[in-house]
């Protein structure tokens, strides 16, 4: 709840987003499952922002299906050797540490036999290759792990229990992925821009009836999502962990994030398809955001996966 208000204020003030992986994902995992030593070592750096984290879950063959993780950790004297490839690793090129999901037991299949490690991005054997995304920008990477050594203390919780911890982390990610504050802020900025921007007919874009209607519908859906997120948070403050209903806010939130930039493209018209170095001004950032925004229905458990979870876990269909 406090986080909801904190984020609402941050978004309204256009503060740069805090490091998502550290504060919202790694922090809670270490806090919940890490050793006392790990808490002492890592939590202060997360809180202060001194250490930057990335998330080593996805792999080329394991996107929404984490059970297919192939990166292995092999027990050696005093620690483990990690080998494999991580994909879609956001901000790996800025990160000091990775929370890394690996297979420690190749005998068992699927979810069992996975473990979580803390991995130093400066360690020998770590190679980061940039992946340029649809928006022409570099924020995600492939990370190659070539027999990277991690000490025994790098293991989080117990061996082969990584799936339990990862699921916990993914649930956190989903709630966070509703992105309701960012959407509200973006939407208010879009409204203000649309009131000034002249549409194709020569009227302000916000006077075009079709656009007005679409703005109103986004307003309605965003209003609904804001309350739904609050409902989830109230559940949390009453001591419950985010449950399957968190999947709804990810589905609706991601659709809404896309609806907002789609609307922006129609508000700005031709100006929005001119690449940034030439455009600038009111459309600055919208175009790239719009392109990259296609990812939100794919990552952190594609919406199709989320719907299956809702149907099976929440509704009990079988």
């Amino acid at each position, binding site marked *: 709840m406090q986080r909801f208000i904190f984020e609402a204020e941050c978004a309204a003030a256009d503060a740069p987003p805090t490091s998502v992986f550290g504060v919202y994902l790694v922090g809670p995992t270490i806090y919940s499952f890490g050793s006392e030593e790990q808490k002492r070592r890592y939590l202060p750096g997360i809180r202060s922002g001194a250490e930057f984290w990335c998330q080593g879950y996805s792999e080329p063959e394991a996107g929404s299906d984490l059970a297919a993780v192939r990166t292995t950790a092999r027990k050696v004297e005093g620690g483990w050797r990690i080998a494999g490839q991580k994909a879609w690793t956001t901000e790996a090129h800025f990160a000091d540490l990775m929370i890394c999901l690996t297979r420690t037991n190749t005998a068992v299949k699927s979810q069992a036999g996975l473990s979580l490690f803390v991995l130093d991005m400066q360690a020998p054997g770590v190679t980061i290759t940039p992946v340029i995304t649809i928006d022409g920008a570099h924020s995600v990477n492939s990370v190659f792990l070539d027999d990277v050594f991690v000490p025994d203390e790098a293991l989080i919780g117990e061996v082969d229990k990584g799936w339990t911890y990862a699921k916990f982390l993914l649930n956190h990610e989903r709630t966070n992925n509703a992105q309701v504050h960012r959407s509200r802020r973006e939407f208010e900025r879009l*409204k*203000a821009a649309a*009131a000034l921007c002249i549409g194709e007919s020569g*009227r*302000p874009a*916000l*006077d075009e009836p079709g656009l*007005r*209607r679409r*703005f*109103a*519908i986004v*307003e*309605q*859906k965003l*209003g*609904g*999502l*804001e*309350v*739904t997120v*609050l*409902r989830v948070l*109230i559940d949390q403050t009453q001591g419950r962990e985010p449950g399957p*209903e968190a999947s*709804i806010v990810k*589905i*609706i939130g991601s659709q809404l994030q896309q609806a907002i930039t789609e609307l922006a493209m129609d508000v700005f018209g031709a100006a929005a398809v001119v690449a940034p170095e030439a455009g600038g001004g009111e459309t600055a950032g919208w175009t790239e955001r719009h392109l990259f925004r296609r990812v939100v229905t794919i990552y952190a458990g594609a919406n*199709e996966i*989320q*719907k*299956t979870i*809702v*149907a*099976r876990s*929440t*509704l*009990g*269909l*079988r």
Partner: protein
Amino acid sequence: MMRRSAEQLDDDRMLRESARNFLEARCAWMPEPRSAAMFADWHREIAELGWFAAGLPEELGGLGADSFQGLSLIEEAGRVLLPLPLATDILIMPWLMRRLPKALASLAEPLAAGRARFGIVREDVRSGGLRHMGGKLSGRGHLSLDAAAATHWVVLAGMRSVGDAALLCVEAAGAGFQPVRLLDGRSGALPRFSGSEAAVVLATGDEAIELAAEIEDRAVAALLADAYGALAAGLALTVDYLNQRKQFGQSLGSFQAVQHLMADAFCDLETLRSLALWTATALTGEPTERTRAAASAKIALGREGLAAASRLIQVSGGIAMTEDYRIGHIYKRLQVSAALHGGTESHIDKLAALSLPPTGRNEG
């Protein structure tokens, strides 16, 4: 809603459970239409349960229950598709009596006892609206869900201008209406006024407009609670059906396409619920916020609500097309609700006007 005390939450739960028990025992849904005698019995029993008294302030003999409790009763009635309109007597009149005690106090005890029943009459712009001039009321009212069975009408006349605005109370016995049967089997009325009706003026001018706006928003809140109840019950029914019914050798509920349609329906339903909760909270707040919430909720009823009902029909298949199955009736009830108190498109216009910044354009 958002932050209720543990005690309040306990009260809420008990009220809801007793309402559900009563409704399921006495008013369980069935496809056949019920008799007028049955309606009268139900209304009497509901009055005895204290549903109409609950929201009245203590000085008028009530319990001072808040809107959430009233709305949860209406939601429960929606679950069984109760064909009896309760919203005005539970959610609107107790509040209006608190606002206008002088004019309405004498009707509080009859309301609580179920002897007085109220109906809301809005003006119908399509047929020229309602005018109150020189003490005489003339024109036609919009389709009203509760005017037919009411003893008193609360009439919203001339609300398009401050000079004409008048909120009135009219004894239904002296007023005329065309009874109509609605799509979902409920009864409605198309009121009309000839100038001879005895009308008590409750408010005029700005005050009338403010009260009318709140009446409309409360009516929307009630429609939403009803729709949510109906859909939530329908969703549960559908889950059971899908897990039982087999096709191509599997349960219907195991098909991914069916699961995703149901997940979509659940998202729709939760959006509806969130906006209903926002509206309920906003009833005690600042008028612009309240109307923005109500407009959002009404849009959700027409879009997400009908979409959810359509999805329930789609996944259920042929059985949902029959008069004997409940899902079709839920769809029809929502269709009626979507048309009452302003259609979806007009609420979209309203929300646009309330939430978009001005552009300095000239409105036609």
